[in-house]
């Protein structure tokens, strides 16, 4: 075909080949345009290539993102919607680099060839390009006279010119692997291109041009073209080729200079399909064995080189182990009278950088002594080993989260990898720790956490309660009231606890302490400096500290850090709070599961959590020694956080049978994924402060961001369901919604409503009005079946059934959806959705008060909204912390190009 399409041919080829020498492969004159320059891979690779090559990328494309730039150490690269716009702006280029997704690759290549008549080279990085598209690319490139590399390759690099075009040859530090020398590399594997360059350096050989060919079925710049360019490059004295099975590209090569060919893949003959390299699957006669023979013939050797049997000729050698390449090359070059480019750098013997026998009697072949890593890794590792806690790579976290994820199929959200159906079974305190520490907590953690909250929930004399009361009096909804309280929990108020956390981490970070509740830890090696001690202890006893420590004692909580503070004298309240939070997170911190930033912010989160619960109650119920009538000492020594939340909301201590549904309610609503308005509000607040300077992010402001991004439609809407249920049950004499013998005919109630609703629907339709929704019924995802179920509702129904609990409101909903179908109002049985479950749970708790007149409808609405905030603050704390750890400054903004004007 090649002869059919390209009439001229090129030199000795019957088809077009543009590059006649390896020196022309990647030159200082090449100017590059990158398609999909803002794609994930390009964003990481192109800046390194651009800087390494002295700024050879003239522009990139990304549809819809004209005007943006790709920042690089060598200056910003402009971005256009398409190639034509870049050319119209005066840019010129001869080389295209394609980072598009597979389905778009062919069109991108065609765009480069048709729009830019100067195009000479195209490098395709994308993996999984279809054979269909590859065959068309080959044909058009031949017609237009363009050299193509890839797809599924890493491009080309020239160590002499310091030019890298396309992918990431040499990784993020190309100069480290691509040492200037006399050997060219041609490799079917992108990774092995760099690996072989490193191996060659160990043998004293540097490189000229390195070519990553890719190993798809179509290899556009094939070994024959490489052999020709190699022959014409005066700089290159030898070549190393890494070749895999499949294809006849190497069958008839001719070389005039020495070559070491590494043929790998005999074993692959047993595989029935390709793994990794799509083209690396042999048909008949093009397997690894055949290719070894081809190269043996071409390189005039009668076997495979190995250190034990070093078969080489002046023409070269064939190896099947890439580690043998440097030695084989040196032996071949010796026959040609050519010495290595430089003194060998290191060797390739086994050098474990890390290891542990775990006390097992390992044989000598396994018990290899550890070796210091080579530089710069040795210094990096030494530095990193000093670091306590994890470091997360920073990236744009707009609409992304490492904290929560919602499965669009089931609508079930997971927080820190745990489904909300499971968090519904955990106490509030556990969920808060789960969101921030990403691990489930044990009894000791709970004792510590609950003590901290209990000693902070009473806001008597605290400006936070004054702010909350003021906001309440002005008629604000609970979210605004709590936001006002949170403003008082600014950075200065938690400064002491954060500093104390820092000191504890400094003192214990390298002490060998693995868990915060480890028993019998020896403090003798902990030597605090005077300025560290000053952060931890005060001159006289601090009542807050005393209260916390007595609470911990009463609960039998274990803490190495609190024990340590006790040895010092009079710890401050901040120090004890820091000791509590550090104990909770220590194990995760030391195992690098969480960052140090999270650990030092944990006291702040505890503060905010307590403030939100405390400030939800009128200031009059906060006294010098009690909260909602419960002595503070009692709270500190006994109460759980869920109980305190219940107390704040309903004014009484819950019995276990009341506590469980309340806990389920809160656990269910901790998160609904990162797309929710509340999560977006929290993340926006972090983003605006700039998470790249994490110490400057105001976590209380982020919590306010969450609170202000809830409202009557998001969070407060739970009341709609309650209102609906009140309408249905208001006329009954129901006293206890948990009584299985309630005596109500739910089916009849459902039918009555359904018939009325049906009539209303008909009437509204008649006058062209929309039909109102029934709160808690139907769901945009769980519909279309004969009988529809919201899986979350199904799960919870089963959970309550298993516990033998009745909820008449929930049962009514089940009867209602059936009645709507039976009366022909709905075409199928709609689902009872999760909002209905929440409304039913909440109203069951509030019903006695509502019935007795103690709670007005307004109070019911406030309680419903507040309950939502109690639950959701957990998930939002997780989002805040996640964004602080991973996000970039201002990363939640929407580019102007994606915003639209509506007139």
């Amino acid at each position, binding site marked *: 075909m090649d002869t059919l399409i390209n009439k001229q041919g090129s030199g000795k080829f019957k088809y077009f080949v543009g590059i006649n020498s390896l020196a022309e492969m990647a030159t200082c004159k090449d100017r590059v345009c990158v398609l999909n320059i803002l794609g994930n891979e390009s964003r990481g690779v192109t800046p390194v290539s651009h800087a390494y090559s002295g700024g050879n990328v003239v522009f990139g494309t990304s549809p819809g993102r004209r005007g943006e730039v790709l920042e690089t150490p060598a200056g910003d690269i402009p971005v256009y919607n398409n190639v034509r716009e870049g050319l119209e702006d005066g840019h010129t280029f001869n080389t295209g680099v394609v980072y598009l997704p597979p389905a778009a690759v062919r069109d991108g290549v065609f765009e480069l060839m048709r729009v830019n008549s100067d195009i000479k080279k195209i490098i395709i990085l994308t993996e999984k390009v279809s054979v269909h598209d590859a065959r068309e690319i080959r044909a058009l490139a031949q017609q237009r006279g363009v050299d193509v590399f890839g797809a599924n390759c890493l491009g080309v690099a020239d160590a002499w010119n310091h030019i890298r075009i396309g992918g990431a040859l040499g*990784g993020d530090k190309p100069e480290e692997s691509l040492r200037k020398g006399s050997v060219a590399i041609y490799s079917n594997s992108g990774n092995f291109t760099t690996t072989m360059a490193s191996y060659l350096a160990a043998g004293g050989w540097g490189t000229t041009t390195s070519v990553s060919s890719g190993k798809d079925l179509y290899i556009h710049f094939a070994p024959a073209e490489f052999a020709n360019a190699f022959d014409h490059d005066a700089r290159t004295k030898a070549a190393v080729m890494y070749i895999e099975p499949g294809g006849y590209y190497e069958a008839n090569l001719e070389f005039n200079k020495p070559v070491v060919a590494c043929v790998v893949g005999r074993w692959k003959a047993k595989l029935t399909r390709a793994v990794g*390299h799509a083209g690396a699957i042999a048909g008949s006669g093009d397997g690894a064995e055949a290719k070894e023979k081809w190269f043996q013939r071409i390189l005039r050797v009668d076997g495979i080189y190995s250190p034990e049997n070093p078969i080489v000729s002046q023409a070269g050698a064939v190896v099947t182990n890439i*580690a043998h390449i440097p030695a084989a090359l040196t032996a071949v070059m010796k026959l040609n009278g050519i010495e290595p480019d430089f003194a060998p750098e290191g060797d390739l013997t086994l050098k474990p950088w890390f290891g542990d026998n775990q006390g097992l009697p390992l044989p000598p072949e396994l018990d290899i002594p550890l070796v210091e890593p080579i530089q710069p890794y040795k210094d990096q590792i030494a530095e990193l080993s000093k670091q306590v806690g994890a470091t997360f790579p920073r990236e744009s976290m707009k609409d992304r989260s490492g904290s929560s994820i919602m499965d669009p199929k089931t609508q079930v959200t997971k927080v820190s990898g745990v489904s909300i159906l499971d968090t519904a079974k955990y106490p509030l305190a556990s969920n808060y720790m789960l969101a921030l520490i990403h691990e489930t907590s044990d009894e000791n953690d709970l004792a510590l956490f609950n003590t901290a909250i209990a000693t902070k929930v009473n806001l008597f004399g605290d400006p936070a309660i004054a702010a909350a009361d003021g906001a309440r009096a002005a008629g604000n909804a609970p979210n605004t009231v709590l936001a006002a309280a949170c403003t008082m929990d600014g950075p200065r108020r938690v400064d002491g606890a954060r500093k104390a956390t820092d000191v504890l981490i400094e003192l214990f970070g390298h002490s060998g302490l693995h868990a915060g509740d480890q028993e019998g830890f020896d403090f003798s090696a902990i030597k605090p400096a005077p300025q560290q001690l000053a952060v931890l202890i005060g001159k006289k006893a601090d009542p807050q500290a005393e209260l916390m420590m007595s609470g911990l004692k009463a609960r039998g909580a274990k803490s190495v850090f609190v024990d340590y503070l006790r040895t010092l004298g009079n710890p401050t309240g901040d120090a004890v709070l820091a000791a509590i939070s550090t104990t909770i997170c220590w194990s995760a911190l030391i195992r690098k599961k969480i960052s140090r930033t999270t650990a030092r912010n944990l006291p702040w989160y505890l503060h905010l959590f307590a403030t939100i619960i405390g400030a939800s109650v009128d200031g009059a119920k906060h006294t010098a020694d009690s909260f909602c009538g419960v002595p503070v000492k009692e709270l500190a020594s006994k109460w759980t956080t869920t109980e305190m939340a219940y107390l704040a909301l309903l004014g009484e201590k819950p019995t276990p049978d009341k506590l469980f549904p309340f806990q389920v309610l809160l656990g269910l609503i901790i998160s609904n994924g990162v797309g929710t308005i509340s999560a977006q509000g929290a993340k926006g607040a972090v983003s605006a402060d700039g998470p790249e300077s994490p110490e400057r992010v105001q976590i209380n402001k982020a919590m306010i961001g969450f609170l202000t991004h809830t409202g009557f439609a998001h969070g407060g809407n739970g009341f709609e369901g309650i209102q609906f249920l009140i309408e249905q049950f208001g006329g009954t004499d129901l006293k206890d919604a948990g009584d299985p013998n309630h005596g109500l005919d739910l089916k009849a109630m459902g039918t009555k409503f359904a018939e009325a609703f049906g009539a209303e629907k008909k009437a509204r339709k008649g006058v062209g009005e929309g039909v109102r929704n029934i709160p808690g019924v139907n769901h945009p995802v769980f519909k279309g079946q004969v009988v529809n179920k919201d899986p979350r509702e199904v799960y919870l129904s089963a959970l309550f059934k298993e516990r033998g609990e009745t909820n008449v409101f929930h049962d009514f909903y089940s009867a209602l959806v059936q009645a709507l179908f039976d009366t022909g109002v709905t075409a199928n049985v709609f689902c009872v959705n999760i909002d209905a479950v929440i409304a039913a749970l909440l109203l069951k708790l509030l019903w006695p008060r509502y019935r007795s007149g103690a709670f007005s409808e307004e109070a019911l609405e406030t309680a419903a909204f507040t309950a939502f905030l109690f639950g959701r603050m957990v998930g939002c704390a997780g989002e805040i912390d996640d964004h602080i750890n991973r996000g970039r400054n201002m990363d939640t903004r929407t580019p102007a190009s994606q915003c639209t004007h509506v007139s």
Partner: protein
Amino acid sequence: MQITGMLFGAKLLKLVDFPTAEVRGPEACDHEIKELIARHGEVFVKPIFRGGVGKKGKSGLLGRAKDLNTALKEKERLYFVEHKHGNAVAKSQGVTFEGAVPAEHEVYVSIADSTKYRAPTLTITHHGGMDIEELPKEQIVEIPFDPLTGLKSFVITNALCDLNAPKEIVSPLAQNLPKLWDLFHHNGMTTLELNPIRMMPTGKGSLIPVACDFKCGFDRDDPRVKRLNLPNDLFAVDYSDFEQEINQLRTYQGQSDVSVINANGTILAPTFGGGANSLVTEFLGDDAIISSDFGGNPPYEKMRDVMRICLKHWLKQSNVLFIIGGKANNTDIFVTFRAMADALREYVSERGPTPVYVVIGRGGPQLSRGLLAFKDVLDSLSLPYRIFGFDSAMTDVVRYAQAADRWMKAGGRKMLARQLGIEE
């Protein structure tokens, strides 16, 4: 992803109006078979194998019948017949009944991409109906053609003239074979083979090419395959549960290519890079459970999921967890290693400790952070391990992993299990 046989072959050929032998599937009832025999004088009874299974005729797996009784006997013989071809064993899942096509000429035709020409290539001979490899070269022609214009009649005419083919077959083939290009190119095929095409007299003095056997391969990376609406389970036989689970994560960012080599192996080797995959697979041989390429800079979530699936299926039986790759160019070692280490930790928290020796060899961006992240987890799990940088030869690291496997088999595993407080 291959299809052989006329059950689906005839359906696919019908899409482009290419004439085929009349075919009935395993559900054909007695009177249908009887009518088929009545219409064609004879039926061929062929077993249905999923995937690519060749040389059936040679293995006696082709039944012929001129009456219902014989047809049913052949059906019984071939319905669940086993076929060994090389190392592969395939089991039939039913039979087809194909009406005989009278003809004087049998033609072999295939279209495939040739690496010799780097173009789609037509291979044709009028000496069809037999193994193409057995024919002398001068009796076959290979003609590359331009994919932008497609397979045209003149390409076929020229090829048949070069072969000195009987003149009566030239025109019908020139008219009909170009249709195959549409089927091949627009539906994600990489190979298409009809052997034989029988040149059936029309009764009007001309011939018509009738496809009597069918073979094709699809490109798993080509979404055009979906246009054919082929049943999902048609290719399912190619994949184990494990592979299917991993395949669901197959996207273009980050490879997730995997193949089970030995379900009874003892070294679990998540491998990074196509080159490393070839090399590691080569050296580990049957010790390896899987052959994989997880390179291509997968994001954290994907890497953790891939590792979670690998561990779920194989860690329990593994003596050595061997994570190996060269010096990465673009894959972030910190991200991928943190993801794998987290998956390992989660596995142990969910299922308890497991005795495994861990061997790691890697280089690339964020190497120090990545290795340390893994080291921390291994320390916390109290597992024996060695971690190598890229300055150790990869092949020696592979041999180290094999030595660890031998030691585990020779009593090390028991010792380690005891130390971890588990009974095996």
